[in-house]
Protein backbone atom coordinates (compact mmCIF):
# COMPACT_ATOMS: atom_id res chain seq x y z
CA UNK A 1 0.00 0.00 0.00
CA UNK A 2 1.46 3.32 -1.06
CA UNK A 3 2.06 6.30 1.16
CA UNK A 4 -0.28 8.26 -1.11
CA UNK A 5 -3.02 5.69 -0.40
CA UNK A 6 -2.30 5.96 3.34
CA UNK A 7 -2.60 9.73 3.25
CA UNK A 8 -5.80 9.44 1.29
CA UNK A 9 -7.28 7.19 3.96
CA UNK A 10 -6.24 9.51 6.73
CA UNK A 11 -7.88 12.40 4.89
CA UNK A 12 -11.04 10.36 4.71
CA UNK A 13 -10.97 9.86 8.46
CA UNK A 14 -10.40 13.53 9.05
CA UNK A 15 -13.49 14.18 6.94
CA UNK A 16 -15.45 12.09 9.41
CA UNK A 17 -15.81 8.83 7.54
CA UNK A 18 -16.56 6.00 9.94
CA UNK A 19 -17.53 3.10 7.73
CA UNK A 20 -16.34 -0.34 8.69
CA UNK A 21 -14.49 -0.59 5.39
CA UNK A 22 -12.53 2.53 6.23
CA UNK A 23 -11.74 1.05 9.63
CA UNK A 24 -10.56 -2.12 7.93
CA UNK A 25 -8.38 -0.11 5.59
CA UNK A 26 -6.91 1.80 8.47
CA UNK A 27 -6.21 -1.43 10.28
CA UNK A 28 -4.44 -2.70 7.20
CA UNK A 29 -2.02 0.19 7.37
CA UNK A 30 -1.62 -0.09 11.11
CA UNK A 31 -3.90 2.74 12.19
CA UNK A 32 -6.29 0.74 14.29
CA UNK A 33 -7.34 3.17 16.96
CA UNK A 34 -5.77 2.56 20.36
CA UNK A 35 -7.62 0.65 23.04
CA UNK A 36 -9.97 -0.91 20.57
CA UNK A 37 -10.10 -4.17 22.52
CA UNK A 38 -12.67 -4.18 25.31
CA UNK A 39 -11.21 -7.40 26.70
CA UNK A 40 -8.49 -7.25 29.33
CA UNK A 41 -5.88 -10.01 29.28
CA UNK A 42 -7.24 -11.47 26.06
CA UNK A 43 -3.83 -13.01 25.33
CA UNK A 44 -3.99 -14.88 28.65
CA UNK A 45 -0.65 -13.41 29.79
CA UNK A 46 -1.56 -12.56 33.37
CA UNK A 47 -2.28 -15.35 35.87
CA UNK A 48 -1.78 -13.87 39.32
CA UNK A 49 -3.64 -16.65 41.13
CA UNK A 50 -1.52 -19.48 39.73
CA UNK A 51 -1.29 -21.55 36.59
CA UNK A 52 -3.53 -24.55 37.24
CA UNK A 53 -6.78 -25.38 39.02
CA UNK A 54 -8.00 -28.96 39.20
CA UNK A 55 -11.31 -30.65 39.96
CA UNK A 56 -13.52 -27.80 38.74
CA UNK A 57 -17.21 -28.38 38.14
CA UNK A 58 -19.26 -25.74 39.94
CA UNK A 59 -19.26 -22.24 41.40
CA UNK A 60 -17.17 -19.44 39.89
CA UNK A 61 -13.44 -20.09 39.67
CA UNK A 62 -10.79 -17.62 38.55
CA UNK A 63 -7.29 -18.61 37.45
CA UNK A 64 -6.09 -16.59 34.46
CA UNK A 65 -7.02 -13.03 35.30
CA UNK A 66 -10.48 -11.83 34.24
CA UNK A 67 -11.58 -15.21 32.84
CA UNK A 68 -13.59 -17.55 35.05
CA UNK A 69 -14.96 -21.04 34.81
CA UNK A 70 -18.42 -21.59 36.18
CA UNK A 71 -20.94 -24.34 36.40
CA UNK A 72 -23.58 -26.22 38.28
CA UNK A 73 -24.46 -29.84 38.99
CA UNK A 74 -23.16 -33.05 37.47
CA UNK A 75 -20.24 -35.27 38.38
CA UNK A 76 -17.93 -33.93 35.71
CA UNK A 77 -14.54 -32.40 36.45
CA UNK A 78 -11.99 -30.41 34.49
CA UNK A 79 -8.62 -28.77 34.93
CA UNK A 80 -8.17 -25.15 33.92
CA UNK A 81 -4.63 -23.96 33.26
CA UNK A 82 -2.48 -21.32 31.64
CA UNK A 83 -0.93 -23.20 28.75
CA UNK A 84 2.12 -22.33 26.65
CA UNK A 85 0.41 -23.50 23.47
CA UNK A 86 -0.81 -20.73 21.19
CA UNK A 87 -1.05 -19.54 17.59
CA UNK A 88 1.83 -17.54 16.13
CA UNK A 89 2.38 -14.44 18.23
CA UNK A 90 0.71 -15.79 21.35
CA UNK A 91 2.79 -17.36 24.12
CA UNK A 92 -0.16 -18.32 26.32
CA UNK A 93 -3.65 -19.68 26.16
CA UNK A 94 -6.36 -20.73 28.57
CA UNK A 95 -6.69 -24.50 28.51
CA UNK A 96 -9.58 -26.64 29.69
CA UNK A 97 -8.94 -30.35 30.09
CA UNK A 98 -11.73 -32.82 30.91
CA UNK A 99 -10.68 -35.14 33.72
CA UNK A 100 -14.01 -36.75 34.60
CA UNK A 101 -16.44 -37.37 31.76
CA UNK A 102 -20.21 -37.81 31.83
CA UNK A 103 -22.06 -38.92 28.72
CA UNK A 104 -25.45 -38.59 30.37
CA UNK A 105 -25.93 -34.86 30.76
CA UNK A 106 -28.69 -33.90 33.18
CA UNK A 107 -31.24 -31.28 32.19
CA UNK A 108 -29.91 -28.73 34.64
CA UNK A 109 -26.22 -29.13 33.86
CA UNK A 110 -24.44 -25.98 32.78
CA UNK A 111 -20.74 -25.30 32.33
CA UNK A 112 -18.99 -22.40 30.72
CA UNK A 113 -16.08 -20.06 30.93
CA UNK A 114 -16.88 -16.43 30.81
CA UNK A 115 -15.69 -12.86 30.81
CA UNK A 116 -17.54 -10.03 32.54
CA UNK A 117 -17.45 -6.38 31.46
CA UNK A 118 -18.35 -3.33 33.52
CA UNK A 119 -21.29 -1.34 32.18
CA UNK A 120 -19.29 1.87 32.13
CA UNK A 121 -16.82 0.28 29.71
CA UNK A 122 -19.58 -0.63 27.24
CA UNK A 123 -21.00 2.80 26.59
CA UNK A 124 -19.25 3.07 23.22
CA UNK A 125 -21.61 0.37 21.92
CA UNK A 126 -24.55 2.81 22.30
CA UNK A 127 -26.75 -0.13 23.16
CA UNK A 128 -30.38 0.72 23.66
CA UNK A 129 -30.26 3.67 21.28
CA UNK A 130 -31.23 4.08 17.63
CA UNK A 131 -27.54 4.35 16.76
CA UNK A 132 -26.49 1.16 18.52
CA UNK A 133 -23.29 -0.36 17.15
CA UNK A 134 -22.59 -3.87 16.01
CA UNK A 135 -19.69 -5.53 17.78
CA UNK A 136 -17.25 -8.21 16.79
CA UNK A 137 -15.86 -10.90 19.04
CA UNK A 138 -12.78 -12.70 17.80
CA UNK A 139 -10.56 -15.33 19.36
CA UNK A 140 -8.27 -18.23 18.53
CA UNK A 141 -9.35 -21.75 19.52
CA UNK A 142 -8.04 -25.27 19.25
CA UNK A 143 -9.34 -28.59 20.55
CA UNK A 144 -8.43 -32.24 20.65
CA UNK A 145 -11.21 -32.94 18.14
CA UNK A 146 -13.89 -31.12 16.22
CA UNK A 147 -16.49 -29.45 18.41
CA UNK A 148 -19.17 -26.79 18.33
CA UNK A 149 -19.76 -24.42 21.21
CA UNK A 150 -21.88 -21.33 21.82
CA UNK A 151 -20.61 -17.81 22.49
CA UNK A 152 -23.34 -15.76 24.12
CA UNK A 153 -23.65 -12.15 25.20
CA UNK A 154 -25.89 -11.92 28.24
CA UNK A 155 -26.96 -8.35 29.04
CA UNK A 156 -27.12 -8.31 32.84
CA UNK A 157 -28.72 -4.88 33.02
CA UNK A 158 -31.68 -5.72 30.79
CA UNK A 159 -31.82 -9.51 30.94
CA UNK A 160 -31.30 -9.95 27.21
CA UNK A 161 -29.28 -12.49 25.27
CA UNK A 162 -27.65 -13.01 21.89
CA UNK A 163 -25.67 -16.14 21.03
CA UNK A 164 -23.83 -17.67 18.11
CA UNK A 165 -22.13 -21.00 17.64
CA UNK A 166 -18.50 -21.46 16.67
CA UNK A 167 -16.48 -24.42 15.55
CA UNK A 168 -13.28 -25.81 16.99
CA UNK A 169 -10.81 -27.98 15.10
CA UNK A 170 -7.56 -29.66 16.01
CA UNK A 171 -5.59 -26.68 14.69
CA UNK A 172 -5.47 -23.12 15.87
CA UNK A 173 -8.16 -21.14 14.06
CA UNK A 174 -9.37 -17.62 14.49
CA UNK A 175 -13.12 -17.35 15.07
CA UNK A 176 -14.84 -14.10 14.15
CA UNK A 177 -18.39 -13.46 15.31
CA UNK A 178 -20.15 -10.19 14.59
CA UNK A 179 -23.15 -9.46 16.78
CA UNK A 180 -26.03 -7.31 15.61
CA UNK A 181 -26.61 -3.96 17.28
CA UNK A 182 -29.29 -3.90 19.95
CA UNK A 183 -31.53 -0.86 20.08
CA UNK A 184 -33.25 -2.12 23.21
CA UNK A 185 -31.89 -1.80 26.73
CA UNK A 186 -28.93 0.47 27.46
CA UNK A 187 -26.07 -0.69 29.64
CA UNK A 188 -26.08 1.15 32.94
CA UNK A 189 -23.11 3.48 33.18
CA UNK A 190 -21.66 2.05 36.38
CA UNK A 191 -19.05 -0.33 37.76
CA UNK A 192 -21.29 -3.40 37.97
CA UNK A 193 -21.64 -6.14 35.38
CA UNK A 194 -23.01 -4.89 32.08
CA UNK A 195 -22.49 -7.99 30.04
CA UNK A 196 -21.40 -11.57 30.50
CA UNK A 197 -19.61 -13.09 27.53
CA UNK A 198 -20.39 -16.75 28.05
CA UNK A 199 -18.63 -19.54 26.22
CA UNK A 200 -20.91 -22.52 26.75
CA UNK A 201 -19.05 -25.84 26.76
CA UNK A 202 -21.82 -27.96 28.23
CA UNK A 203 -25.53 -27.45 28.74
CA UNK A 204 -28.44 -29.74 29.54
CA UNK A 205 -31.88 -29.52 28.02
CA UNK A 206 -32.94 -26.73 30.36
CA UNK A 207 -30.75 -24.47 28.24
CA UNK A 208 -31.03 -26.13 24.82
CA UNK A 209 -34.63 -27.28 24.46
CA UNK A 210 -36.05 -23.99 23.20
CA UNK A 211 -35.46 -22.06 20.01
CA UNK A 212 -31.90 -20.89 19.63
CA UNK A 213 -31.91 -17.98 17.19
CA UNK A 214 -28.39 -17.13 16.16
CA UNK A 215 -27.25 -13.52 16.35
CA UNK A 216 -30.59 -12.16 17.52
CA UNK A 217 -31.05 -10.05 20.61
CA UNK A 218 -34.06 -11.07 22.67
CA UNK A 219 -35.34 -11.10 26.21
CA UNK A 220 -33.57 -13.92 27.96
CA UNK A 221 -35.26 -17.31 27.96
CA UNK A 222 -33.23 -20.05 29.60
CA UNK A 223 -34.27 -22.73 27.11
CA UNK A 224 -33.10 -20.55 24.20
CA UNK A 225 -29.66 -19.68 25.46
CA UNK A 226 -27.57 -22.51 24.02
CA UNK A 227 -27.65 -24.16 20.62
CA UNK A 228 -28.84 -27.76 20.57
CA UNK A 229 -25.80 -28.45 18.39
CA UNK A 230 -23.52 -27.54 21.29
CA UNK A 231 -20.91 -30.21 21.95
CA UNK A 232 -20.62 -31.50 25.49
CA UNK A 233 -17.06 -30.84 26.56
CA UNK A 234 -17.47 -33.66 29.02
CA UNK A 235 -18.26 -36.44 26.54
CA UNK A 236 -14.73 -37.81 26.90
CA UNK A 237 -11.70 -37.35 29.10
CA UNK A 238 -9.78 -36.75 25.87
CA UNK A 239 -11.52 -33.38 25.48
CA UNK A 240 -9.39 -30.28 25.58
CA UNK A 241 -10.02 -26.71 24.55
CA UNK A 242 -7.49 -23.90 24.23
CA UNK A 243 -8.44 -20.27 23.67
CA UNK A 244 -6.46 -17.05 23.40
CA UNK A 245 -6.42 -13.74 21.54
CA UNK A 246 -9.89 -12.79 22.74
CA UNK A 247 -10.90 -9.42 21.37
CA UNK A 248 -14.17 -7.48 21.43
CA UNK A 249 -14.39 -4.36 19.34
CA UNK A 250 -16.99 -2.01 17.98
CA UNK A 251 -18.04 -2.60 14.39
CA UNK A 252 -18.42 -5.55 12.07
CA UNK A 253 -14.76 -6.11 11.28
CA UNK A 254 -12.34 -8.21 13.27
CA UNK A 255 -9.09 -6.31 13.16
CA UNK A 256 -5.73 -7.66 14.22
CA UNK A 257 -5.48 -8.54 17.88
CA UNK A 258 -4.39 -5.57 19.98
CA UNK A 259 -1.31 -6.78 21.82
CA UNK A 260 -0.56 -4.83 24.97
CA UNK A 261 2.53 -5.11 27.14
CA UNK A 262 2.48 -7.40 30.16
CA UNK A 263 2.78 -4.40 32.43
CA UNK A 264 -0.25 -2.73 30.91
CA UNK A 265 -2.32 -5.89 31.12
CA UNK A 266 -1.23 -6.53 34.71
CA UNK A 267 -2.25 -3.02 35.75
CA UNK A 268 -5.62 -3.41 34.05
CA UNK A 269 -6.14 -6.78 35.75
CA UNK A 270 -5.25 -5.33 39.16
CA UNK A 271 -8.42 -3.27 39.12
CA UNK A 272 -10.11 -6.62 39.77
CA UNK A 273 -7.53 -8.72 41.62
CA UNK A 274 -4.09 -8.14 43.04
CA UNK A 275 -1.54 -9.88 45.17
CA UNK A 276 -0.85 -7.52 48.04
CA UNK A 277 2.06 -9.55 49.38
CA UNK A 278 3.41 -12.99 48.63
CA UNK A 279 6.11 -14.84 50.48
CA UNK A 280 6.37 -17.23 47.57
CA UNK A 281 7.19 -14.44 45.12
CA UNK A 282 9.65 -12.69 47.44
CA UNK A 283 10.72 -14.37 50.66
CA UNK A 284 10.62 -11.22 52.78
CA UNK A 285 8.05 -9.37 50.72
CA UNK A 286 7.08 -6.21 52.51
CA UNK A 287 3.51 -5.32 53.36
CA UNK A 288 4.41 -1.79 54.35
CA UNK A 289 4.90 0.25 57.48
CA UNK A 290 2.99 -0.80 60.56
CA UNK A 291 2.44 0.89 63.89
CA UNK A 292 1.57 -0.37 67.36
CA UNK A 293 -1.78 1.21 68.23
CA UNK A 294 -1.51 -0.31 71.68
CA UNK A 295 1.09 -2.58 73.19
CA UNK A 296 -0.82 -5.53 71.76
CA UNK A 297 -2.36 -4.24 68.54
CA UNK A 298 -0.50 -3.73 65.30
CA UNK A 299 -2.09 -1.88 62.36
CA UNK A 300 -0.76 -1.89 58.81
CA UNK A 301 -2.07 0.44 56.11
CA UNK A 302 -1.31 -0.72 52.57
CA UNK A 303 -1.64 1.29 49.37
CA UNK A 304 -2.98 -0.93 46.59
CA UNK A 305 -1.14 -1.09 43.27
CA UNK A 306 -4.10 0.44 41.44
CA UNK A 307 -7.52 1.59 42.56
CA UNK A 308 -9.80 -1.41 42.49
CA UNK A 309 -13.32 -1.60 41.10
CA UNK A 310 -14.89 -1.58 44.57
CA UNK A 311 -13.68 -2.04 48.11
CA UNK A 312 -12.08 -5.49 47.83
CA UNK A 313 -12.42 -8.72 49.72
CA UNK A 314 -9.10 -9.60 51.31
CA UNK A 315 -7.89 -13.16 51.79
CA UNK A 316 -5.09 -13.71 54.28
CA UNK A 317 -3.13 -16.95 54.59
CA UNK A 318 -2.29 -17.73 58.19
CA UNK A 319 0.20 -19.97 59.90
CA UNK A 320 2.81 -19.96 62.62
CA UNK A 321 5.06 -16.94 62.17
CA UNK A 322 3.87 -16.18 58.63
CA UNK A 323 4.44 -12.43 59.14
CA UNK A 324 6.99 -10.36 61.04
CA UNK A 325 7.42 -6.81 62.26
CA UNK A 326 10.84 -5.23 62.66
CA UNK A 327 10.83 -2.27 65.05
CA UNK A 328 13.02 -0.75 67.70
CA UNK A 329 15.95 -2.98 66.74
CA UNK A 330 14.02 -6.18 67.36
CA UNK A 331 11.41 -8.29 65.62
CA UNK A 332 8.11 -9.93 66.44
CA UNK A 333 6.61 -12.65 64.27
CA UNK A 334 2.90 -13.25 64.18
CA UNK A 335 0.49 -15.60 62.47
CA UNK A 336 -2.11 -13.57 60.61
CA UNK A 337 -4.14 -10.40 60.24
CA UNK A 338 -7.72 -9.28 60.37
CA UNK A 339 -8.97 -7.16 57.47
CA UNK A 340 -10.45 -3.92 58.77
CA UNK A 341 -12.86 -3.42 55.90
CA UNK A 342 -14.58 -0.52 57.61
CA UNK A 343 -11.39 1.54 57.45
CA UNK A 344 -10.41 0.38 53.98
CA UNK A 345 -11.27 1.69 50.54
CA UNK A 346 -10.86 0.71 46.91
CA UNK A 347 -7.34 2.15 46.84
CA UNK A 348 -6.08 1.35 50.35
CA UNK A 349 -6.61 -1.41 52.88
CA UNK A 350 -5.95 -1.68 56.59
CA UNK A 351 -5.02 -4.86 58.42
CA UNK A 352 -4.50 -5.45 62.11
CA UNK A 353 -3.32 -8.08 64.53
CA UNK A 354 -4.37 -8.07 68.16
CA UNK A 355 -3.84 -11.67 69.12
CA UNK A 356 -0.18 -12.56 68.99
CA UNK A 357 1.94 -9.46 68.93
CA UNK A 358 3.42 -7.35 71.69
CA UNK A 359 5.39 -4.13 71.81
CA UNK A 360 5.22 -0.52 72.81
CA UNK A 361 2.33 1.64 71.74
CA UNK A 362 3.49 4.18 69.18
CA UNK A 363 6.37 2.13 67.83
CA UNK A 364 6.43 1.82 64.06
CA UNK A 365 8.29 -0.68 61.94
CA UNK A 366 8.59 -2.64 58.73
CA UNK A 367 6.06 -5.43 58.29
CA UNK A 368 7.03 -8.30 56.03
CA UNK A 369 6.13 -11.81 54.97
CA UNK A 370 8.11 -14.35 56.96
CA UNK A 371 7.13 -17.58 55.26
CA UNK A 372 6.86 -18.74 51.66
CA UNK A 373 3.20 -19.56 52.28
CA UNK A 374 2.36 -16.05 53.49
CA UNK A 375 -0.07 -14.53 51.03
CA UNK A 376 -2.47 -11.61 51.06
CA UNK A 377 -4.74 -10.97 48.08
CA UNK A 378 -7.39 -8.38 47.30
CA UNK A 379 -10.34 -9.28 45.08
CA UNK A 380 -12.84 -6.92 43.50
CA UNK A 381 -13.83 -9.07 40.53
CA UNK A 382 -17.18 -8.63 38.89
Amino acid sequence: MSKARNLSLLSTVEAGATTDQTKADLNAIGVSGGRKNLIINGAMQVAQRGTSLTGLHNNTNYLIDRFSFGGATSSVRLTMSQDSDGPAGFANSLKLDCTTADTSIAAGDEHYFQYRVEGQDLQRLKKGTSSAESMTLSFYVKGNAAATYTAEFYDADNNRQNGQTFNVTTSWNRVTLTYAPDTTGAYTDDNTIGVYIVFWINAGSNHTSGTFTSNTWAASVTANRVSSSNTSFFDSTARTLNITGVQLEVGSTATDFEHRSYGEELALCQRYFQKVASGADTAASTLGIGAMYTSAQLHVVIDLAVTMRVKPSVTIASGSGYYIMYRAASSDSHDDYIYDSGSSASNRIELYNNTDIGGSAGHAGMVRCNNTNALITADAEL
Partner: protein
Amino acid sequence: MENQAAWIISCKLQDSGYLINGNMGVPNDPANRDCADVLQWIAEGNTPAPEFTDAEIAANTQAETNATSQAYLDSTDWYVTRHAETAEAVPSDVTTARAAAREAIV
Protein backbone atom coordinates in the same frame (compact mmCIF):
# COMPACT_ATOMS: atom_id res chain seq x y z
CA MET B 1 -28.55 -21.95 37.81
CA GLU B 2 -25.16 -21.80 39.41
CA ASN B 3 -25.53 -21.33 43.16
CA GLN B 4 -23.32 -18.32 43.80
CA ALA B 5 -23.33 -18.90 47.56
CA ALA B 6 -22.31 -22.57 47.48
CA TRP B 7 -18.65 -21.74 48.13
CA ILE B 8 -19.49 -20.29 51.56
CA ILE B 9 -18.69 -22.87 54.21
CA SER B 10 -18.60 -20.59 57.23
CA CYS B 11 -19.50 -16.97 57.85
CA LYS B 12 -18.77 -14.80 60.87
CA LEU B 13 -19.79 -11.23 61.50
CA GLN B 14 -17.01 -8.68 61.72
CA ASP B 15 -17.06 -5.01 62.67
CA SER B 16 -17.75 -3.82 59.13
CA GLY B 17 -18.32 -6.98 57.15
CA TYR B 18 -17.93 -10.71 57.23
CA LEU B 19 -15.20 -13.30 57.69
CA ILE B 20 -15.78 -16.09 55.16
CA ASN B 21 -14.30 -19.57 55.42
CA GLY B 22 -11.91 -18.39 58.12
CA ASN B 23 -9.56 -16.39 55.90
CA MET B 24 -11.45 -13.98 53.65
CA GLY B 25 -12.57 -10.60 54.93
CA VAL B 26 -15.53 -9.29 52.96
CA PRO B 27 -16.70 -5.68 53.22
CA ASN B 28 -20.36 -4.94 53.78
CA ASP B 29 -20.79 -3.55 50.26
CA PRO B 30 -23.24 -5.23 47.87
CA ALA B 31 -21.16 -4.05 44.89
CA ASN B 32 -18.50 -6.47 46.11
CA ARG B 33 -19.42 -9.81 44.53
CA ASP B 34 -18.43 -11.78 47.61
CA CYS B 35 -20.69 -9.61 49.74
CA ALA B 36 -23.48 -10.20 47.24
CA ASP B 37 -22.91 -13.93 47.69
CA VAL B 38 -23.03 -13.55 51.48
CA LEU B 39 -26.31 -11.66 51.24
CA GLN B 40 -27.70 -14.44 49.04
CA TRP B 41 -26.44 -17.01 51.55
CA ILE B 42 -28.28 -15.15 54.31
CA ALA B 43 -31.40 -14.89 52.14
CA GLU B 44 -31.31 -18.66 51.78
CA GLY B 45 -31.90 -18.89 55.53
CA ASN B 46 -28.37 -19.01 56.88
CA THR B 47 -27.21 -16.90 59.81
CA PRO B 48 -23.67 -15.58 60.27
CA ALA B 49 -21.99 -16.64 63.48
CA PRO B 50 -21.05 -13.94 65.98
CA GLU B 51 -17.58 -12.51 65.50
CA PHE B 52 -16.24 -14.32 68.52
CA THR B 53 -17.47 -17.25 70.60
CA ASP B 54 -17.15 -16.99 74.37
CA ALA B 55 -14.07 -19.20 74.20
CA GLU B 56 -12.52 -17.00 71.50
CA ILE B 57 -13.24 -13.86 73.51
CA ALA B 58 -11.52 -15.44 76.49
CA ALA B 59 -8.60 -16.61 74.36
CA ASN B 60 -8.21 -13.19 72.71
CA THR B 61 -8.36 -11.45 76.06
CA GLN B 62 -5.67 -13.77 77.43
CA ALA B 63 -3.57 -13.29 74.31
CA GLU B 64 -3.75 -9.53 74.73
CA THR B 65 -2.86 -9.90 78.40
CA ASN B 66 0.09 -12.11 77.48
CA ALA B 67 1.33 -9.64 74.92
CA THR B 68 0.92 -6.63 77.20
CA SER B 69 2.57 -8.39 80.10
CA GLN B 70 5.47 -9.63 77.99
CA ALA B 71 5.94 -6.14 76.60
CA TYR B 72 6.14 -4.75 80.15
CA LEU B 73 8.68 -7.37 81.17
CA ASP B 74 10.75 -6.59 78.07
CA SER B 75 10.65 -2.87 78.77
CA THR B 76 11.81 -3.29 82.40
CA ASP B 77 14.45 -5.98 81.92
CA TRP B 78 17.10 -3.29 82.07
CA TYR B 79 16.36 -2.78 85.78
CA VAL B 80 17.25 -6.40 86.39
CA THR B 81 20.37 -6.16 84.25
CA ARG B 82 21.47 -3.01 86.07
CA HIS B 83 20.91 -4.72 89.41
CA ALA B 84 23.01 -7.67 88.31
CA GLU B 85 25.82 -5.47 87.08
CA THR B 86 25.83 -2.66 89.65
CA ALA B 87 23.82 -3.98 92.58
CA GLU B 88 21.51 -1.01 92.34
CA ALA B 89 18.12 -2.18 93.57
CA VAL B 90 15.15 -2.59 91.30
CA PRO B 91 12.45 -0.18 92.45
CA SER B 92 9.89 -2.02 94.52
CA ASP B 93 6.96 -0.90 92.38
CA VAL B 94 8.72 -2.34 89.33
CA THR B 95 9.44 -5.58 91.15
CA THR B 96 5.78 -5.85 92.15
CA ALA B 97 4.53 -5.04 88.66
CA ARG B 98 6.94 -7.51 87.04
CA ALA B 99 5.74 -10.24 89.37
CA ALA B 100 2.15 -9.44 88.44
CA ALA B 101 3.05 -9.51 84.75
CA ARG B 102 4.71 -12.91 85.07
CA GLU B 103 1.67 -14.19 86.96
CA ALA B 104 -0.69 -12.92 84.27
CA ILE B 105 1.03 -14.74 81.41
CA VAL B 106 -0.54 -18.09 80.64
